[in-house]
């Protein structure tokens, strides 16, 4: 199942370029509107990058999943003997490799735009890498719930964004600790804990939502 999902995600590679371009362009515009004040840029960078990463994931996931569902691929998944949660976890993994990692690398490369120091960039990268599995899982859950509607990414963000708050809060508190030069380890642990919890929660809910989404 894992190899199937990895291959499935690999086939979507053509669609992903617009996802990454969107992320880069949005970051660029955001840094431009904030002006050249370095202190201000540094303070607002983590929040902006996090929000834009979340939105990028939440807007691209439903598009991919919707196309797969329209082609009848979800039916095949349901007829497959492995558990739906196995499928969802493989999908999270595939999305992590094909969307999450590139996004993290891109925010790493674009961090000079926000005048971040190397230490700050590193902890930003770490928080993103820890948060992405939960974000992907939430995105998949939301896509399944909104699959048979016309809402798309907008509706998904509307219903799922409140659930991402723990990640945002702990991720940003890590960044704040780093910028203040304090010990950020406790916040890291909390971030990991909430990421794991949200991952489990959304996979559990998703394995209920998958047959529901296929019912049309």
């Amino acid at each position, binding site marked *: 199942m894992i190899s199937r999902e990895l291959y499935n995600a690999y086939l979507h590679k053509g669609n992903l370029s617009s996802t990454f371009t969107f992320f880069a362009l949005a970051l660029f515009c955001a840094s431009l509107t904030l002006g050249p004040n370095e202190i201000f840029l540094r303070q607002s960078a983590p929040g902006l990058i996090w929000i834009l990463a979340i939105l990028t994931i939440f807007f691209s996931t439903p598009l991919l999943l919707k196309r797969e569902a329209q082609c009848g691929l979800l039916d095949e998944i349901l007829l497959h003997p492995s558990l739906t949660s196995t499928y969802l976890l493989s999908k999270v993994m595939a999305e992590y490799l094909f969307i999450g990692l590139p996004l993290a690398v891109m925010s790493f490369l674009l961090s000079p735009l926000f005048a971040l120091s190397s230490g700050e960039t590193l902890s930003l990268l770490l928080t993103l890498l820890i948060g992405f599995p939960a974000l992907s899982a939430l995105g998949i859950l939301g896509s399944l*719930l909104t699959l048979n509607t016309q809402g798309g990414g907008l*509706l998904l963000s509307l*219903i799922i964004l*409140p659930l991402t708050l723990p990640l945002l809060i702990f991720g940003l508190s890590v960044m704040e600790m780093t910028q203040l030069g304090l010990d950020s380890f406790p916040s890291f642990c909390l971030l990991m804990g909430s990421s794991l919890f949200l991952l489990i929660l959304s996979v559990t*809910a998703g394995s209920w939502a998958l047959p529901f989404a296929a*019912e049309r």
Partner: protein
Amino acid sequence: MKFTLAKPRYFLKVTNFLFPIALVLGALCFAAGLYSALITSPPDYQQGDAMRIMYIHVPASWMALFCYGILAVFSLFVVVWRHPFAEILAISVAPIGALFTVLSLVTGSLWGKPMWGTYWVWDARLTSVLVLLFLYGGYWALYKAYAHSAQGIRAASLLAIIGVINLPIIKGSVDWWNTLHQPASLTKFGSPSIHPSMLLPLGLMTAAYGFYFLVLFIIRARTELNKRKLLVQEGLS
């Protein structure tokens, strides 16, 4: 036969009996509560007359949480047992809960202006109530986004259940977060006991809100029930 009590027929019977009682008692409690809250109860020694808004604000917050609680219970029935009557009840309760949440937020910020000098503070309690409002909004948006309400209610119910698990985390995380910004957030009752002269109007107002909720809930559930009956009849003819 597990759910005999939850059949529409029994619901109509019980509510036929309950509705006028709730209406009258609600009106009485409201009048008495307002009278004692605004006129007979003493002003707070620190906050003065401004604290009288508490009698509107606190019951609203309680009701907002209470509504979400029963919404989650009904949602559980929808998701696990696919009970059709639970759908009707869940749909009926959600907008009322949202109404109480809005009321709580508005009165809260009006109270905040004279007390804290600002309408909004990023305090743990405020933020989690705001998130509660977003959850209600998401629930309703998802329900409405489906062309078939039978599908919409199932998707939305799952969301409501996840929300109830997530709510304590959000509250907890905001608490953690805020230890950085505001070491001491404002607590509404500094001392553990309130004077009985304040407890009486608060209790009366809470009862009034409860009865008001019951009245609205019964009206909405009956409307929804009739709507469905109409749909079925149209389908048959």
